[in-house]
């Protein structure tokens, strides 16, 4: 691939200057995975950028055409590995739409709790790694302390700490134990106390505000045109959340929660600080959702009975196609599945939110400094597993 062309900055014979080509290469502490951004720089200022992805491409869509519907669930975990339950939920809902079944009530409420816990865990990583990108190494450890509690909680029903394979077409894989819901509520109490600590150490820090306010301003129209969703879109002032506007799980219609939106508190609307603050407040909203959901989990089946019997042989939905989108921590994950009546889909397309959020990077980077570039990449909160699939 031809590299970006370099432009000459100063042509005088005694002071010839040329732009510098720098690889924010696949191995880099701050690119949140194997992302390569080829930068063209005039000193510290980025004048051109070109994103190069595909280093984590694992052919998930081709695999989806060769394995059965239930066998593909763990692959969806590994796309956005930080928000595994949410990705599984999108896949499960799409398959359920094709099959024409709905998960039982208990499973729906458990799905809500598990997905919101995963949302908190994912935003904690966004918060911690954003601190490291900015040079503050301490908040990361605080975030992981809470994440450890969440992973221990989620290990109990699913058996795994990070890639759960728990939310499946038809419901959830296993039931929870008696003490799980009270433990989740205890975690919520603990988390609210810690959340205040995070704000003290990072959110209100003048240096952090100086690094993130007015940096990477994403105007509303640009965000919509580039297909940005999730906190990236909400940070630009657009109050759009699938859980509230196009609820994909009916419990969300019965739970009260707010949708935090960026307001340009410390700079321009749509800057990095707004996106970061949206994520922080979303963590508290998730706590609110979990508290209400824990109070309402009914008894009953955790998996659709017909599907349990059907799992002995691979699922065969009828001919059709379905597109379901869910609100992941990073944005809207969409699965488009085309079924020809066989045990594997004909086409299994994952529309990753990080893929679309990252595409706006080439438009945001030119004009800022490399330190700002790191801040912008961090504020988009991408996971390369989902970008590359």
């Amino acid at each position, binding site marked *: 691939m031809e590299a970006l062309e370099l432009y000459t900055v100063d042509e005088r014979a005694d002071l010839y200057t040329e732009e510098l080509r720098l690889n924010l290469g696949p191995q880099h502490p701050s690119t949140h995975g194997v992302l390569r951004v080829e930068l063209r720089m005039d000193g510290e200022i980025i004048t051109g950028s070109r994103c190069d992805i595909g280093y984590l491409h694992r052919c998930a869509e081709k695999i989806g055409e060769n394995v059965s519907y239930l066998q593909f669930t763990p692959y969806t975990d590994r796309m956005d590995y930080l928000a595994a339950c949410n990705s599984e939920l999108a896949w499960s809902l799409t398959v359920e739409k094709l099959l024409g079944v709905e998960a039982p009530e208990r499973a729906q409420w458990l799905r809500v709790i598990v997905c919101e816990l995963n949302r908190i865990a994912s935003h904690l990583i966004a918060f911690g790694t954003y601190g490291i990108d900015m040079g503050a190494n301490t908040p990361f450890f605080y975030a992981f302390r809470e994440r450890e509690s969440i992973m221990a909680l989620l290990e109990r029903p699913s058996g795994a700490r990070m890639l759960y394979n728990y939310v499946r077409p038809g419901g959830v894989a296993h039931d929870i134990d008696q003490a799980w819901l009270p433990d989740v509520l205890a975690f919520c109490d603990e988390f609210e106390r810690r959340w205040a600590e995070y704000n003290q150490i990072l959110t209100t820090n003048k240096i952090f505000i100086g690094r993130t306010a007015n940096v990477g301003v994403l105007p509303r129209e640009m965000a*919509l045109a580039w297909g940005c969703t999730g906190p990236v879109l909400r940070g630009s002032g657009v109050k759009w959340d699938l859980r509230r506007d196009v609820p994909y799980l009916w419990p969300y219609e019965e739970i009260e929660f707010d949708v935090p939106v960026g307001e340009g508190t410390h700079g321009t609307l749509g800057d990095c600080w707004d996106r970061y603050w949206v994520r922080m407040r979303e963590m508290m909203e998730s706590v609110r959702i979990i508290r209400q959901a824990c109070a309402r989990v009914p008894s009953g089946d955790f998996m659709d009975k017909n599907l349990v019997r059907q799992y002995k042989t691979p699922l065969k939905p009828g001919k059709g196609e379905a597109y379901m989108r869910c609100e992941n921590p990073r944005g809207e994950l969409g699965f488009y599945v085309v079924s020809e009546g066989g045990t594997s889909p004909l*086409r299994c397309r994952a529309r990753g939110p990080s893929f679309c959020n990252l595409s706006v990077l080439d438009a945001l980077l030119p004009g800022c400094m490399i330190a700002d570039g790191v801040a912008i990449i961090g504020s988009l909160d991408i996971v390369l597993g989902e970008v590359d699939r």
Partner: protein
Amino acid sequence: MNEATLHARLAGSGVAGIGALDTSAKDPFVVVEADTLLAALAFLRDDPQCRMEMLHNVTAVERPEAMEVVYHVCSLTHHHSLTVKVRVPRPEGGTHASWIPEVPSVAGLWAAANWHEREQWDLLGVRFTGHPDLRRILLPQEWIGHPLRKDYVYPTEHGGMPLELDAVPLYERRAGDPAPEPKPPREAGTPLFQPPAPFSTRPEAAGGKTAEPGQGGGEH
């Protein structure tokens, strides 16, 4: 508005080539002609009743009779969405791996289409005419072939590294076994294993028995 109303509005917009709303699949969709695709999508984006601000997804699907490109557009102001499809039929006399269907690019309408269309070009070989920068996005630039095609031939080597499968995998060899004899070099272009059979010859198409999960493998 639900899909039916949207479709009615689109059909009454004056753009030619809008098909009927197909509700046979689980999600209803509209088939549009490739020539008027841009006009139809521009109408959907700009009409105040439709206001599809966001292009959510662009997918290409390879079907036995045509290559479909599916656009999912959604509106944030009106909380509705629509699925629009374009079909490029296969040419007469069958196709081979170098068939490149062409579809106009919507990257001028929504910037999001830029990367989506690059991905569909990369994986399925659909050329989007008018795209500002159509090159591979997930695979290396020098890759040959479009992997998600049903007749994709897996390469035998990449960058000098052979991609052969051993007759006896490493994890099943025991100490003291004689070394497996080297397989004769495969001719370039022959498939690694049997690709999936063409659609018309598959049992399910004729309503036959269940195929096993993971079908599509061959020798291993």
